[in-house]
C-alpha cells in the first residue's frame, strides 16, 4: 500500500527506541482505530495516514480469512446489484418500428389506418354500452385503479430498515438504495404511460 507520504516516512525506529509524545499519541489513536475495526465499527472519517495504516491492517487480516462479508451484507449487495441492473434494462419486449417502414405499410394498404381507427371507436362505444347497461354490475361505482405504491413518493423507512449504530454514517450507501428504488418506480410508471411524464 505505497502512498505518496511514504517519501516522508523516515526509517522506522527499532522496537527498543523510546517513542516521542507525538508518536505515543498517534500509536494510541491507531490502537483505538484497530479496536473499533476489529469489532466492526470502523469510523467513516480519519486522517489519510491513519486510513492507509488501517488498510494495511485490513489487508493482512483479510488474507488470513479474518474478514468475512456478513451474510446480510452479501444478500443486500446481490439485491442492490439486481435492482440496479434490472432497473436499467428496458422492460418488456416492445419493438420500435422505424418510421420509414410504417410509411411504406400505409402506402401499400391505406385501408388499414381507417379500419384500425374505426375499431378503436367501436370499442369505445361498446365500453359505453357495457357501462350504461350494467355490463360491469348495475349500481356499482366504477373503481378507478389506484396508483401502485412503488410509483409514489413515500418515506424510505421500509426500504432502509432500522439503522444500526455501526452504520450511522453510511448515508452514502442508503442514498444509493433509495435512488435505485425510486428509479425503478419512475421508469415503470413512465413505461406504463408510454413515455409521458
Amino acid at each position: 500500500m505505497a502512498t505518496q507520504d511514504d517519501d516522508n516516512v523516515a526509517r522506522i525506529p527499532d522496537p527498543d527506541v523510546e517513542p516521542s509524545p507525538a508518536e505515543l499519541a498517534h500509536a494510541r489513536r491507531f490502537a483505538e482505530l484497530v479496536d473499533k475495526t476489529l469489532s466492526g465499527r470502523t469510523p467513516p472519517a480519519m486522517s489519510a495516514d491513519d486510513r492507509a495504516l488501517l488498510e494495511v491492517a485490513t489487508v493482512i487480516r483479510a488474507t488470513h480469512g479474518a474478514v468475512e462479508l456478513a451474510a446480510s451484507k452479501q444478500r443486500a449487495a446481490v439485491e442492490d446489484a439486481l435492482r440496479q441492473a434490472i432497473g436499467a434494462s428496458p422492460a418488456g419486449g416492445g419493438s420500435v418500428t422505424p418510421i420509414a417502414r410504417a410509411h411504406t405499410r400505409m402506402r401499400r394498404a391505406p385501408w388499414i389506418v381507417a379500419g384500425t381507427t374505426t375499431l378503436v371507436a367501436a370499442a369505445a362505444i361498446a365500453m359505453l354500452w357495457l357501462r350504461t347497461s350494467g355490463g360491469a354490475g348495475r349500481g356499482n361505482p366504477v373503481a378507478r385503479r389506484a396508483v401502485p405504491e412503488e410509483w409514489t413518493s413515500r418515506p424510505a423507512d421500509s426500504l432502509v430498515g432500522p439503522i444500526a449504530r455501526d452504520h450511522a454514517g453510511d448515508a452514502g450507501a442508503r442514498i444509493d438504495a433509495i435512488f435505485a428504488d425510486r428509479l425503478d418506480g419512475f421508469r415503470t410508471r413512465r413505461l406504463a404511460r408510454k413515455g409521458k411524464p
Partner: protein
Amino acid sequence: MASEPATTVELELEVEQRLVEEAQQGNLDAMRPILERYAAPLYGTVILPRLGDAASAEEVLRDTLATAVEKIRRFTWQGKTIYPWLRQIAINKVYDVHRQSKRSRRLADAMVHEVAVESDPASHADAQLIADQERRAHRDRIDETMQQLQERYRSAIELRLIQELSREDCARRLGVTIGTFDVLLFRAVRAFRKHFGERAELPATGDT
C-alpha cells in the same frame, strides 16, 4: 457401456451454464444464485485484499455484481465457470478506485502488471480452486513481507491482527505495557506498509 456419473463440479457447471443462458435471454433474476455464490470469494479474496477498506470493498462488490448483470449478454460460455470473468470485472473496478485516489496511484500502476490467476481451461477447475489459489498468492505476498520485519514487529502483527488477541493479551505475551504494545503495533504496521509498497512496485515474475 453406461456413462460415468457426472461429478459434482460438472453438475454445478451445467447448472451455472443454464442460469447464464437464462439471464442472457432476458431473465436477469436468473443471475441471483450465481451472484450469491460468488459474492463472498470476490469480496474476501479479490476486492478486500486489494483495497484494504471494508466499506469501499462493499461498494466495489455491489458495482461488480451490477456490472456483471448488466453485461451478461457479452459473456461467452467457454466450458468453465463464470468466476474468472466476474473476478476480472472486480479487479478493474478496484483499479478504478485506486486511480481515482492520488494516494494510491502507484499501487494502481503496479496492479496493471499483475498476472491473473488462471486455471487450466481444460480441467474445468471451479471457482473454489481459483479463489484458493488467489488466497494463497495473497498470503505468500504477505508472508514474504512479514519476513522482512523485525521479530517483535512481526509478533505484534501476528498476535493482534491475525490471532486477534486483545491489546492486553498481546502486551502480556510480549512482556510489555499496553502503551508500549500500541507503539510496537503502530511501528510494525508502518514498517509493513513501507516494505509491501516497495514490493508492489516490482514487476510481476509470472508466478500466481
